[in-house]
């Protein structure tokens, strides 16, 4: 069954089918939100909120519409709403020196090298929009076409913005490396 078929079933009231979509998307959405918030616990809460909205606002899903675009749009809204409600921006309370530590977690045995730590510190210095574009296209390996569809813009526009974001990231990365 495609994502769209499952979502239509959920939309028609078969809520149990939501488990299939959770299985397919929870890790990806969690990673998206974790890299946006740089906070694992918060990312888990927000991910759960995404699936709660998926069920509660299931009627806002238009049949035939690409599910991935829709659910990522929900995730972006959840992220934006969280910081609007808490009235603070990520950069206001994150200590740049500690950025990167959140990726390492004893539970999954993932160790982090200096290069990756530098990468996340550089990511933190980008604007939220630029960070989001890089998370989607480089970390989540989404195609420019998919991101363009999600953000309701052209592929060319996305491509230019991604290039600028990478360029900016490079600047931050090598500036931090010198410190």
């Amino acid at each position, binding site marked *: 069954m495609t994502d769209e078929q499952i979502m239509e079933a959920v939309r028609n*009231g078969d*809520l*149990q089918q*939501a*488990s299939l979509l*959770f299985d397919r998307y*929870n*890790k990806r959405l*969690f*990673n998206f939100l*974790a890299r946006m918030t740089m906070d*694992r616990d918060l*990312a*888990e809460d927000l*991910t*759960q909120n995404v*699936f*709660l909205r998926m*069920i*509660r606002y299931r009627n806002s899903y238009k049949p035939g519409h690409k599910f991935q675009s829709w659910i990522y749009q929900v995730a972006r809204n959840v992220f934006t709403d969280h910081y609007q409600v808490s009235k603070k921006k990520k950069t206001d309370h994150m200590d740049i020196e500690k950025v990167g530590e959140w*990726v390492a*977690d004893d*539970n*999954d045995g*993932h160790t982090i090298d200096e*290069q*990756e730590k*530098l*990468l996340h510190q*550089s990511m933190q210095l980008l604007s939220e929009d630029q960070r989001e574009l*890089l998370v989607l296209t*480089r*970390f989540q*390996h989404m195609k420019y076409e998919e991101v363009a569809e999600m953000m309701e813009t052209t592929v060319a526009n996305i*491509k*230019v913005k*991604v*290039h*600028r974001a*990478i*360029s900016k*990231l*490079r600047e931050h*990365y*090598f500036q931090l490396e010198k410190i």
Partner: protein
Amino acid sequence: MERERLEGLLIDFIDGRLTESERKEVKELLSTNNEVRVLYEQLKQVTTAMDRSAEINPTARLSRGFQQMLTEEVAQQHAPKQRQVFFTPAIFRAAAAVFLVMSGVVIGYYVNQYNAQQERLAVIEREKQEIEKENLRLKNNMLALIGNESSASQRMKGVNVALTIESADDEVVEALVKTLNEDKNSNVRLAALDALSKFHQEPNVRKALIAALGKQDDPVVQIALIQLMVKMKEKGVLKDLNRIIEDNNSIKPVKDEAYSGILKLS
């Protein structure tokens, strides 16, 4: 070459998105320009770092939380929903509002009417109690006066009190009948007859009056009784009237009244 275009070309070169001619152009630049080569190396390093960055795993808390949330949502879905009545278009809602207001006014009016009626009934009830109280006072007064054997004027006064009583109970009727039949003074007996005639519609009074005709020997009272019987159209007294006619002790005016009575009642 413009810096932004150069960086774009290098990124697309790294990603393998360039056309053949563009690729040749970039390769040419890389082999001849050291600055471009450094830029390329740096871009390559950050893009590779991003591409290689491992996915992180959520904890089991996320999955548990989702299952719990799903269970709750499913339970809520099957819970009976509170039915919400919602009129559309707005004109229906306005009509419903007007109806509610009008209903409130009508109900309020009737509640008000009901309360006023209850108040009137309470007033009537109070008046009725006052009358009953007054009647009781008069009755007791009357009985006390009638019982005064030594004074005819007092007994007369008592009988006159009976005339003001609205309704007569057994006790009053009994006292008046006793006075009618037994009082020594004919004026008092006549007054008692007058008082009883006021209640002649009452079955017990009627019965007592008929019986009294057989007992009376005072001509004045006999005549008054015969006249009352005629007025009452009481045919049951014909036998007594015949007895009065045949009675040698009856005086002529009484016999005449008895004849007249027989004539009117036959």
